[in-house]
């Protein structure tokens, strides 16, 4: 570790910090002595995560309550994070919900709410963060997408559409910010064994949140553009997207 660059004091803003994946990623940053600013909807949960990160070696951990669908609250929280830590180096956007596809099909409001959390709110946040990093000519934006965004399937296409739309947005943003030296990373986890999936039957494709968190940290370190976690999802999704629509539309996926 002595030969590695000094990573301590890095200033990291985590949106949706109480998810298992975000927490595990933040733990790696904490172990390297980063400063962290955490947002989420539940102050008690944020405080539990913050205490954990302090014990694990974070130089500084602050928290702020934020419901990402409160678009008007975004700028204030980003400003507070930058002010609290003396600037920003990394923004990890990890909030999200896994909507019930059936209920979305039956309800316009349900579908739009899912899009609001998983797409619209993220676009709003990214717009503010991108402008800040672009003018500073410095920063790294990492966003948690999903393999579900690679192709629409009947079992979860509302979620897939939000994550797929996000992916196009991030592609464009990456292209725009390249000249400013700002990295934009799209992270696409497959199945993760988290409390959110507690009732889902587990198989060999499930990865632990710890493994995913460490992989996200490495992706940020190595400034990759698009990362599948674990890696085997890349060939799997390559096959899934290569199937012609004439066949795909007949499948029960």
């Amino acid at each position, binding site marked *: *570790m002595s030969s590695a660059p000094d990573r301590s004091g890095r200033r990291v803003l985590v949106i949706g910090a109480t998810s298992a994946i975000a927490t595990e990623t933040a733990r790696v940053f904490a172990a390297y002595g980063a400063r962290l600013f955490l947002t989420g909807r539940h102050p*008690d949960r944020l405080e539990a995560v913050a205490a954990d990160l302090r014990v694990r070696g974070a130089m500084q951990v602050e928290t702020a309550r934020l419901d990402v669908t409160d678009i008007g609250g975004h700028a204030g929280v980003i400003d507070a994070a930058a002010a609290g830590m003396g600037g920003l180096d990394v923004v990890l956007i990890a909030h999200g919900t896994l909507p019930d596809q059936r209920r979305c099909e039956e309800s316009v409001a349900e579908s739009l709410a899912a899009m609001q959390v998983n797409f619209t709110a993220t676009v709003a946040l990214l717009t503010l963060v991108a402008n800040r990093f672009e003018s500073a000519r410095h920063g790294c934006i990492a966003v948690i997408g999903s393999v579900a965004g690679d192709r629409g399937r009947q079992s979860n296409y509302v979620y897939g559409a939000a994550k797929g739309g996000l992916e196009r947005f991030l592609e464009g943003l990456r292209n725009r910010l390249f000249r400013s030296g700002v990295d934009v990373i799209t992270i696409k986890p497959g199945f993760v064994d988290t409390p959110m999936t*507690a*009732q889902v039957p*587990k198989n060999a494709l499930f990865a632990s949140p710890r493994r995913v968190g460490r992989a996200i940290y490495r992706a940020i370190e190595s400034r990759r553009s698009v990362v599948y976690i674990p890696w085997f999802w890349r060939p799997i999704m390559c096959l899934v997207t290569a199937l012609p629509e004439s066949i795909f539309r007949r499948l029960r996926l």
Partner: protein
Amino acid sequence: MRTYQSWGRYPRASHTGVLPIVWRTEPPPLDRLDRSILPFGLGRSYGDSCLNDGGLLLDTKALDRLIAFDAGNGLLRCEAGVTLAAILALTVPKGWFLPVVPGTRWVSVGGAIANDIHGKNHHRAGTFGAHVVRLELLRSSGDRLVCSPEENAELFHATVGGLGLTGLILWAEIRLNRIPGAGIALERIRFGSLDEFFTLTESDQQYEYTVAWVDCLARGRRLGRGIFMRGDHAGWPGAPPSPLVEARLRVPCDAPAGLINRATMRAFNELYYRRQVRGRTRSLVPYTPFFFPLDTVADWSRLYGAAGFLQYQCVVPEQPGSAGMREIFERMTRSGEAPSLAVLKRFGDVPSPGLLSFPRPGLTLAVDFAFRGQRTLALLEDLDRVVRDAGGAVYPAKDARMSPESFRRFFPQWERFAVHVDPKFSSSFWRRVQRS
């Protein structure tokens, strides 16, 4: 849903639901559940004490946050689902070690307390529970009670070693020990008989950790031959080993039935014994392989095949000539079953804090048997009889079959304990030993 079973994979249980416990600040309304509940950590109990057939489990895996660590005095506060591996990863580089560790680091703090686990330093440190400063217990009534030897003391003594039956442990505070580094100064000594073991274990007081591996298939003059290991914490040159790295080797699926039999076990034991060529060796080793030999191969319990296995761990008070322990060895070797390498250790006289704690002064033996139906059960019942007559006990964390009569003899404080069992909490083990 994950399949929830115990480490020995006997007996199998089917649970009707699982409730993940994620936030210590948001206890679920347990009183509204219509079935009995039991906390489940990492499932390293061997028998049925972590199972609740027909009921619900409270999965504490996500309750894995550290709360506070004072590197000045070694006090650590953490949630109940934190693994011992995670604690060591944090504290060893800072010069602190858990006061007591078992043979695997993949146990949760809640499980370590609920089974009042012991380790190779029992003769000096006593059990894990002796180092728990306080804990918070969630009762199904919704009450959250901080328990310690001073506060809610009776409930504390019921919860330590209480097999998860008194409520859900949300967090605990543990006192750690200072260490000079991540190494162990280890001495391995080959011994040819039980008598030689007894002589060697006289030296216990000079070493922090002592334990022996014994070949249970050697007979006659060689009865009880094995390897004695003793060690102390020591410095370690270079970076400490990461306890979070899982084993490279993993048993991917159930082995065919009968892979472990008397012949393969005998060959394995012979190799293990012969590997120690010289009578006595000294070395400096990292702490991980010394403490956690069971973690070398992940999911090793699958080697026993789909039928699973039983671990038998008993403690027998010191007697003239160690008659009880000799009797147990004689019966094992004569039985026709295939006992694995056994672990033999002398427990010290540090009192265990739990009403249902297993460790007490005497000799303790732990040995695995492939489950081969009635014959295996008959042998273990036979061994129970020897333990009962000697005034000893069998370890509930390893048990899947002791009779209610044995339980009451082994744990004379059980009635005092039963008063504190939460009305909503139960387990397959508890129902079994409560049968009249």
